[in-house]
């Protein structure tokens, strides 16, 4: 369920169709996912899952698959 929630956050924050959000969806793969949007995406993920992502993880979040992996570290079942 959390995977679907995370997909929604990606789709809304980056203004990308939901079906494009797959594990291989990577940073800079679309023009919308640039460094400025990345920080907005992080903020939206934090808000949705009520977590505060550490700086190294913010930098490491380079794909949807990586995002799933990182979110799981914060105790979110995904």
């Amino acid at each position, binding site marked *: 369920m959390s995977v679907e929630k995370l997909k929604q956050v990606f789709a809304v924050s980056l203004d990308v169709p939901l079906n494009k959000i797959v594990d291989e969806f990577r940073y800079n793969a679309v023009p919308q996912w640039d460094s400025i949007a990345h920080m907005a995406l*992080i*903020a939206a993920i*934090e808000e949705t899952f*009520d977590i*505060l992502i*550490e*700086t*190294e993880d913010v930098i490491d979040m380079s794909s949807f698959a990586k995002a799933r992996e990182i979110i799981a570290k914060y105790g979110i079942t995904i």
Partner: protein
Amino acid sequence: MLGGKVVWVTGASRGIGQAIALACAAGGATTVLVARTAGHLADTRDKMSAGGFPTPIVLDYDITDSVAVGHAFQEVYKTTKRIDGLVNNAGIMRDALLGMISTADIEQSFSVNVFAALHHLQFASRLMRKIGGGSIVNVSSIMGHRGSAGQTVYSATKAALIGATLAASKELAPFNIRVNAVAPGVIQTSLLDGLSPEKLDGRVQSIAMGRIGTPEDVASVVAFLISSQSAYVTGQVLGIDGGMTA
């Protein structure tokens, strides 16, 4: 002027940091007091209690540990749901002449004076964005733009804080987050205890106003910069030095 706001102050156990925390609390802010050892904050907490100020949140963690900083912000944010102000005050001064400066002293000075401030700035600004703005004040020093013999490392760290202030103010302005620095001159703190009367007199001679500053002189300016009374002020380095740089 700070009622309802949450203001984070590092190095709040004594001196300038304690005065800043008290000034913010007197203005109505809930303060987050940070020191390496919570017991060292008892005096600040007692003074707030005696003054009838809002009860502070007391935290002890290693400010140079970015993971610990993140956890601290997360824990406080969960409770307060807001961070309005950050004062990066904690700092150390290691005097040494060139040729006698150890690598360990350089690393520790940058770690406490610069890296810790950057860790706090990053987390605070992210949380401030969520509430639509905030104010960050970095406590630099007159040494950051004037320098002093025997203080090459300290001066370098304080200059770094000024650079960080200017860059961050530009990056964060669109999010209504203001970033300023203060540059205190000679202030009456324990750092002056080791000076001989002659050296102290020499310092006073260099101050146009003819007196050493007090921690409260610095604190009132910082409280102003944290408050909305300075709502249109960002990217500034404000000297608090009695005219030393006039």
